[in-house]
């Protein structure tokens, strides 16, 4: 299967750029390869998400002919195993032994938090392509840290706004019992002004939602909001449909995305989600991205891939702006902050805290003519939205 060859692509990139370096002994710093550490969870139950992230980055590199600003790029893929202390060890190796110029990636917030210090204290830019914890959006903002994704709270608030706009009065909330789950509930409630009939936290290892589904049925809410990533989402969606509850609108974040839709299938049809990007967005950059991605990897990309793809183009634009010279960190930072590239999600710019200011959409699960499932935009809910923490950020003007 085409999408199994991912590590091969990485190795070919490595070899190609190494060969380029060896062939020119009198190489100048300007043509030395730029090294990028790509950190993602590639083993364990959440590996599907990390795989998407890596594939999105690799496609971006491939479309750029493995070059940024005229210099070849060497992508060093690092598996964080969703273990923060392992991630720290590996990132230190990447920084010191491999001397990476950029670190890109990370699906999960706890791994991001673990590597934030080593990377930024090594004066290296860290571009998160998924995790967007509030910790680094407000007072913890860091001049070396950018995200191409979002602030976690924002996405959940979109669903809250959508629920408010739709006129739902009584909503049932359910998330896993960990920090991101609690943040999801808080995010939803920040814009939803109706009544929350119940808030239920489930264990991260939960398989069977029958107890919670019975509770939902007994309370008869106008809608439910849930944040159930990965396998949790697969189980919940299937069981929700099987229990005959699908007539109660299903509002969610990160629960019905292209990573879980292949397993959820028809059960997820018509369910709602929120994001700043969907595969069906009709702009040239996105059309090209989705087509090329499916041709290369044979599955539908999710936000994890799209945001990593954007990071590739973002860094390319920045390196071009500084003429390939990465030594002046202030200039490089300004170049990245300029975000002078075409994002697959349309208009894209960074806020003062170096998190994106972007539109957010309500999405719905649909079946494509070719039988595959994807999320599709329904309506724009928030326009040019700034995350709630930006005002607290005291970003230094110079590094």
């Amino acid at each position: 299967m085409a999408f199994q060859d991912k590590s091969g692509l990485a190795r070919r990139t490595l070899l190609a750029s190494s060969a380029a370096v060896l062939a020119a002994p009198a190489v100048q710093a300007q043509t030395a390869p730029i090294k990028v550490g790509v950190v993602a969870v590639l083993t364990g139950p959440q590996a599907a998400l990390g795989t998407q992230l890596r594939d999105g980055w690799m496609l971006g590199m491939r479309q750029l002919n493995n070059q940024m600003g005229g210099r070849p790029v060497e992508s060093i893929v690092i598996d964080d195993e969703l273990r923060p202390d392992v991630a720290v060890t590996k990132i230190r190796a990447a920084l010191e032994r491999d001397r990476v110029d950029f670190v890109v990636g990370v699906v999960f917030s706890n791994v991001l938090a673990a590597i934030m210090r080593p990377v930024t204290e090594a004066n290296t830019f860290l571009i998160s392509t998924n995790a967007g914890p509030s910790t680094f959006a407000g007072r913890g903002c860091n001049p070396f840290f950018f995200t191409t994704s979002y602030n976690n709270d924002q996405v959940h608030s979109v669903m809250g706004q959508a629920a408010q706009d739709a006129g739902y009065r009584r909503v049932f909330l359910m998330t896993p019992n960990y920090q991101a789950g609690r943040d999801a509930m808080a995010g939803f409630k920040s814009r939803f002004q109706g009544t929350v009939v119940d808030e239920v936290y489930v264990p991260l290892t939960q398989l069977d939602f029958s107890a919670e589904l019975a509770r939902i049925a007994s309370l008869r809410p106008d809608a439910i909001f849930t944040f159930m990533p990965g396998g949790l989402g697969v189980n919940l969606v299937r069981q929700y449909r099987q229990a005959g509850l699908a007539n109660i609108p299903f509002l969610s974040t990160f629960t019905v995305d292209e990573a879980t839709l292949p397993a959820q299938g028809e059960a997820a049809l018509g369910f709602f989600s929120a994001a700043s990007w969907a595969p069906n967005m009709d702009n040239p950059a996105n059309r090209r991205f989705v087509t090329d991605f499916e041709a290369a990897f044979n599955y539908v990309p999710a936000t994890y891939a799209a945001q990593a793809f954007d990071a590739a183009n973002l860094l390319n634009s920045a390196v071009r702006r500084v003429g390939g010279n990465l030594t002046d960190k202030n200039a490089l930072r300004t170049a990245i902050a300029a975000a002078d590239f075409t994002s697959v999600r349309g208009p894209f710019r960074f806020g003062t805290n170096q998190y994106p200011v972007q539109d957010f959409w309500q999405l719905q699960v649909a079946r494509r003519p070719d039988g595959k499932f994807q999320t599709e935009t329904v309506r724009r809910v928030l326009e040019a939205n700034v995350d709630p923490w930006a005002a607290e950020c005291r970003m230094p003007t110079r590094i």
Partner: protein
Amino acid sequence: MKGRDLAVPLVIFALLALAPFIGLGQGHTLTLLARAMIFAMAAMSLSLLVGGAGLVSLGHAAMLGVGAYAVVVLDHARITEAWMVVPIAILAAALFALLTGAIAIRTSGVHFIMITLAFGQMAFFTTSSLAIYGGDDGYTLYNRLELFGSRALEGRLFFHFTCLILLVGVWALVQALLNSRFGRVLQATRENEARARAVGFEPYPYRLAAYAIAGAIGGLAGVLLANAAEFVAPAYLTWQRSGDLLFMVILGGLAGPHGALMGALAFVLIEEWLAKVTEHWRLIFGPLLIFCVFFMRGGIAGLLRRG
């Protein structure tokens, strides 16, 4: 104690001491070695239980977790002086071990395994729900512990040798305990409980003491882990981590703490090295473990003993 049991660990300690000067002095390598040494410490404390007392604990990661989170709690309260934090952390872990051990040691065999697992899970769920310390997202330590007001531990070389000295200390302690009267009684109760009782030794207090000591050492390892990674998360307390520690002990062999030492170093370093070779390194690591069980009875220590 056989000569080889002494020689092998001393060689390992010497190699670890020389490591920074023979090309392994870069920060990331020292980080890796620090992790290996810290887990070796934890594994040796576990071997006191498994090899010494015959108590197979599947909740030992919780001891490290308690030590690490003690550092977090004190850091949050702005207490960062090592000579305060370290004793408190060790005491906290010992207390946790004492309380849970008091219940667990009433059972034996697989029931003991399950009870220790249960306590480990409880510790994990508790740390996950402590939102004030980051919950599942973890807690970033912006500084390592201060040593009498100085930032000496921030220095890589200094930290490396701190870990090494503590490692040697733990090894010496565990070795001395096993060779002492206390250790002999412990092992007697493991080998034949009825006979030990007949001679007048009640196993319970000896086992509980061993459990508390192992917990205390685990807590120390947890403090070092927190400082090495400069980050603490509930992920440190999962049953999978406890399992890893147990596997290190078994892999190394139960003849003595040097077995756990070798098992832990082998486990951490092979994992790291294999992961560089291929993404699917577990496809190799799994059968490697099976191979070790088949052909290396007595673990790595047993292999060296025969060779």
